[in-house]
């Protein structure tokens, strides 16, 4: 923060001082070797600036054409670009075709040829340890990662254009027949049985017993699982209890009082969490919210004694993940543990 005052609040660039020319908040992607002193690319795809000045193009990430149509940029290039059209990612071979390989130093060329072995033309900018390809590209005003178009049809994803799919656990089971989740499939090494779970939930009429949509999220005081931030006494004092936000109408129907203890019941394996009720119109009727920064209680039982000595945070509470449920992203297989259904009862 020592040079904060030197940065312009509109351009975000430092006018003078040791950070002169840099964009505020480095490290942005800075292209090339440290010797190039690239100022950073804080706004990607800014074609109004020269690539040496923090300008850029849209990366050619998905090939150069598909079904006969070019995927490269049309009528768009960054300021001062010697190529006034779209172009693919740069390799040693592309440099040769343009005749730009003569700008490489002997050392850079030797490194590229050593990496490439029998096929040096295939060495791309991302694996060129000499940084020569990036350097030569910057000299010619182009981006080593190419200049392409953004795509609206993501043809390699299960839904190339997003479509509505009901959640696995939904309060609208009547919509599941029309908007089912994706079929069960083996993804990476694992089975993703989302459809089986969704069908089972509908067949069992689960939404009748768990009529509230439970969403989880962050508090400003805590971060992530919260072990570190709940160990900070200034922050811990501001949020001393795990809680569930519940709408006044839902609270009244259940005899739940603001600040009173409740059980939040999850739809799988009889899971439950004992937390305080925060009765508020922050959440709509039929929706509840729980923060995900707490741990250290499990289904009503204090686990403080199980922490290694001196490692227990100041504030403990139920983990929302106790009541969240099955679900995996079909592309990354990442667990979707943020939203589910629940029931709430006064404890």
């Amino acid at each position, binding site marked *: 923060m020592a040079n904060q005052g030197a940065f312009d609040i509109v351009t975000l660039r430092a006018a003078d001082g040791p950070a002169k020319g840099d964009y505020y908040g480095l490290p942005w992607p800075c292209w090339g070797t440290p010797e190039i002193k690239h100022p950073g690319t804080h706004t990607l795809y800014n074609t109004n600036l020269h690539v040496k000045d923090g300008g850029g193009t849209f990366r050619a990430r998905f090939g150069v054409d598909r079904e006969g149509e070019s995927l490269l940029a049309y009528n768009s290039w960054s300021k001062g670009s010697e190529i006034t059209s779209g172009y693919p990612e740069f390799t040693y071979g592309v440099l040769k075709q343009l005749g730009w390989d003569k700008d490489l130093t002997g050392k850079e060329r030797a490194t590229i040829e050593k990496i490439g072995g029998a096929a040096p033309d295939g060495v791309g900018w991302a694996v060129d340890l000499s940084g020569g390809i990036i350097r030569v590209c910057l000299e010619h005003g182009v981006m080593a990662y190419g200049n392409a178009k953004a795509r609206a049809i993501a043809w390699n994803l299960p839904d190339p254009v997003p479509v509505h799919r009901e959640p696995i656990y939904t309060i609208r089971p009547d919509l599941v027949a029309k908007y089912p989740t994706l079929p069960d499939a083996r993804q990476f090494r694992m089975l993703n049985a989302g459809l089986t779970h969704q069908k089972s939930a509908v067949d069992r009429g689960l939404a009748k017993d768990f009529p509230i949509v439970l969403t989880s999220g962050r508090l400003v005081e805590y971060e992530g699982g919260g072990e570190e931030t709940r160990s900070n006494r*200034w922050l811990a004092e*501001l949020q001393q209890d795990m809680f569930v936000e519940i709408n006044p109408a839902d609270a009244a129907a259940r005899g739940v009082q603001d600040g009173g203890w409740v059980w939040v019941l999850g739809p799988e394996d009889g899971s439950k969490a004992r937390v305080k009720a925060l009765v508020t119109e922050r959440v709509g009727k039929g929706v509840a919210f729980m923060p995900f920064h707490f741990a250290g209680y499990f289904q009503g039982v204090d686990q403080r004694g199980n922490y290694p000595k001196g490692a227990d945070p100041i504030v403990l509470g139920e983990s929302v993940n106790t009541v969240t449920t099955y679900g995996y992203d079909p592309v990354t297989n990442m667990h979707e543990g943020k939203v589910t259904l629940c029931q709430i009862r006064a404890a």
Partner: protein
Amino acid sequence: MARVKFLCDADRCIECNACVTACKNEHEVPWGINRRRVVTINDGKPGERSVSMACMHCTDAPCAAVCPVNCFQTTADGIVLHSKELCIGCGYCFYACPFGAPQYPKVTNFGSRGKMDKCTYCAGGPDDKPGKAEYERYGANRLAEGKLPICAEMCSTKALLAGDGEIIAQIYKERVLKRGYGSGAWGWQTAYRETVAL
């Protein structure tokens, strides 16, 4: 000499509690004592507003008027300081204060009050020279170092302003003119017997 004030722009406060945390950290304020806090009204409803509140360092401070031991004094900058040498923890100032600023540590199991603690505008205490003894009793003395209160310095949206009352009122006026609305300088009429004319 300038008359320093606090101004909380309730149209900007996002209830992040950075002011509260910065204050507690700067002055090592114990658990349960809040020199500054953020109050939210109409929570979850249209028109929800949050205001960061601490001692406003009032003109003709009502706490000083009721103090039986005359522990309050107003500095040349308009900061209301109190002497923990003299304070007897009677709690009268808590009843007099329109902002709920005075805080009292519990010193016995019977709930008797210790010496009052409140915001010092980061100006330390009235009795001591800046140093360890003053820090332990009153917290940091940033003013002596030429710095403004940490709460306003740390405010993430610059909702909370501290400094020369005329300058911060001017900043607030310019903001309101530019954005076209303003719910007013909360607490100014009560604390300073004037408001920011818009």
